Structure formats: C-alpha cells, structure tokens
C-alpha cells in the first residue's frame, strides 16, 4: 500500500465525484437528519408527556416503547421498518427513503423523549408548587412555567442528538438511500477503490459534526450567560 498513491487518488476522486459527495450525499444526509430530529422531537415530546402522564397505561406504553427502541440495534430496526412498513401500509411500497426516514424518526423519538423528560424533571419542583399555589392549572403551569425553563435545559442535548443522528443516517446506506455513505459505496463500485472514498466521506462527516458541535458549545455558553446577567 502506498500512501502517496492513496493521497493522489483521494484528490482525483474528489475532483471527479465532488458533486456526488458534497451535493447529493450531503443533501440526503442532512435532510434525513433534519427530518429525523424535527419529527422525532415532536413524537419524542409526545412520548415524554405520556411517560409523565397520570394515566398508567399511557405511561406503560411509552416506557415499553422507549425500552424496546433503546434496547435493540438500530440496523435491525431499519431492516424491520424497511421490510415491514410496505406490507402494513401499501403506499410505502418502493418508498425506501420514506421507510428509512420513518425508522430513523421512531428511533430518535425514543432518545429525544428521554432528553425532554429529563429536561422537564430537572426544573425545580418548587416552580410547580409556586405556580399551582397561585391557582394556575396543571396545563398553564406546564406551558407558562415548566416548558420555557425545560427548553433551555433541553436545547443543547437536542442539538447533540442532531449530531448523533447525522452519523446514524450512514446506516441508511444499507438500502442505498443516497446519503453520504451511499455515495461512498457508489464511487467504490465505479472505481474499485475502497480506502479513498471512505476517507473522503469520513472527512466530510467529521467536518460536519465538528462544526455543529462547536456551534452547540457556543449556544450553551450564550445560554449560561443569560443565567448570570
């Protein structure tokens, strides 16, 4: 193995296929991650509320759901959704992207629900007591007092989840969705080069997540500044 050749090949490959990596691949990866986190956050919030509900069966359903999702491999879930969803819902037939997106959403929702639940529970119980003692209903207490404070706790963790999901979307390449990792496989197939496309895609993933995690850091510091005033 010659490192100089690999270096040259990487540059050549990138010049030839840069649009596959930086346009198509990045587009699919980022769109999948964005859909996953946004829709996942909505479902995650729902599951979190169910887990804290006074209705016991709702609590059980939510708990069982999160435990199963967190206790099984993501790749397995992707396979299951990929093959089972079209059988259950015929319009999803041949809609690989949708099936994978749904699988990712279902997975992320479980993790996000735990983030949201811990964010809500981290708000001092005294806040609830003060609000309720003023006559605020449970709902008003949630929307006016608890959630605004919880969101502040949650946002950085949610942003980190987004970074995790970006990496998780690479599993979608199992089904040739078109994401960065799929492009890697496609270029490999076209050029018979293995290492080079992996390095290129690895660098893109790293730059992406590195920038995002730095942004999250800045965001966290900004928010803490709000506490000191």
């Amino acid at each position: 193995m010659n490192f100089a050749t690999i270096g040259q090949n990487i540059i050549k490959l990138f010049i030839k296929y840069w649009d596959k990596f930086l346009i198509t691949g990045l587009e699919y990866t980022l769109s999948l991650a964005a859909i996953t986190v946004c829709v996942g956050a909505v479902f995650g919030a729902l599951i979190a509320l169910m887990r804290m509900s006074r209705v016991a069966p709702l609590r059980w359903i939510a708990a069982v759901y999160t435990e199963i999702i967190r206790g099984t491999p993501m790749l397995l879930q992707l396979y299951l959704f990929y093959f089972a969803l079209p059988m259950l819902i015929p319009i999803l037939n041949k809609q690989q992207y949708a099936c994978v997106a749904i699988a990712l959403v279902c997975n992320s929702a479980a993790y996000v629900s735990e983030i949201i639940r811990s964010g809500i529970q981290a708000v001092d119980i005294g806040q609830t007591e003060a609000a309720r003692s003023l006559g605020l209903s449970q709902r008003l207490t949630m929307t006016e007092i608890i959630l605004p404070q919880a969101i502040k706790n949650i946002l950085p963790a949610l942003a980190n989840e987004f970074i995790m999901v970006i990496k998780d979307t690479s599993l979608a390449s199992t089904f040739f969705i078109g994401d960065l990792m799929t492009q890697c496989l496609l270029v490999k197939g076209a050029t018979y080069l293995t290492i080079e496309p992996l390095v290129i895609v690895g660098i893109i993933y790293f730059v992406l997540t590195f920038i995002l995690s730095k942004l999250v850091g800045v965001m966290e510091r900004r928010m803490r500044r709000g506490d000191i005033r």
Partner: protein
Amino acid sequence: MEISDKLIQVRDLKKYYNGENIKALNGISIDINKGDVMVVIGPSGSGKSTFLRSLNLLEIPTSGSIIFEGVDITQKRGPDGKKLDIDLHRQKMGMVFQHFNLFPHKTILQNMTLAPVKVKGMPLADAEKKAMDLLTRVGLADRADAFPIQLSGGQKQRVAIVRALAMEPDVMLFDEPTSALDPEMVGEVLDVMRGLARSGMTMVVVTHEMGFAREVGNRVVFMDDGKILEEGTPDSVFNHPQNERLQDFLSKVLV
C-alpha cells in the same frame, strides 16, 4: 364565635407516608379564624410544614377534612356535586415558600401579573398597575423589570409575598419564609409580614423566628410528632408552657 368567622376548619387531618410507617400528620384539628395570625412552631420533622402544605393541598392528606370558606376541599366533589376545582380555592390561599420559588425566566413584574392575568382574566394594564402598587409597598418598584437572579434573597422573598398578594387571597400561608435568608435580610422580610398582619390579613406562619411569633402572632401552635401538643396566646405558650416537650423545645431555642 360565629361560623362565618372560621376561615379554615381542619378536622382530624392525617398524612401517612410509606403505608402507615411515617405519620407526618397524626390527627390535626384546629380552626383558623379570619384575622388570625397563627404561628406554628416545633422541632424539625414535627410535621408543621406538612400541615401548612396540606392546607392548600400541595400535600394530599391521607384522611381528615379541611373546610375552607365552607367547602371541604379534601373531597373530590364540591357541595354542588361538580368536580371540586382546587385551583379556584388555591387562588384564595397565597403561599410563600422557604426558597422563594420566583419564576426565573420572567421579570419581577411578569412574576406578579402572570396569575392575575392568566387565571383571573384581569386586563394586563390593571394587573401591572396593581403589581406596581404592591411593589411600591415593599419598596421594590424600581426593580420591576429586573429578573429574580438579580435580586438579593430578602428582595426575592418580598417579591414572593407580593406576588401571592396580587391574587388578593383570603389567607396567606408562610412556609419558613426566613429560613433560607442571610441573617441581615431576615428583618426586611419580617417587616413586610408584620405590616401584612397589621393590615388584618389572615396568616398561618411556620417559622423558627420566636421573636416574630411572640410579637406578631395572636395564636401560637406547638407541634411535634405530627400532633398539636399545645396551642394558645404567645404569652401562655412562651411564658407558661404546660406541655413537657414544649418546655424542652423552648429551653433549646432562643426566645
């Protein structure tokens, strides 16, 4: 005494935790009359905070009844047969906590107008005017746009008191309002409470401030082991204590 003078009637109130292993309240019966300034004293773990927090159902009692303005608020249904709306009764019971519990994401003014506007439906301008009046009364009008984090402990507690007053409650419950304060800030909070008592507000105060109990209270209640062991005027409780455990307690605290 007429029935109408009785604001809160507590009957055989019990609160058990962990089955029956911990009896935080073990049969409390007492009447709180309009205009009373009732000071509840007792050692730590005597159940005095649990008693106070039961009065507006922050603690749900195991058994017994709390009749507030003629309605037993421990029941699931009100006298009209409809589901009892505890929020409605809590509006008339202001509560002040040891740790202030101001809402950190809202300004002082927003802390005070939230409940009047959202719960009572008061127009914002009216609520703000009322809040400013109250803040002026406790000397904090210039801090209306500050956030709680910018205030000292004593200032926070004064805001917490007027926040509760903004709902125009019929009774004010104080749960160790000066226990979390630096010593030099205790006075300013007690001053506000003294003024409130003088204005005729019905107050139930759980405190370790014996001086305040003696000076401002018209009734002093001594609790231990979840029971009321002695009750009377400050003079009788502090100067002629009958119960042995009260005598023991008073010998250990500065009066």
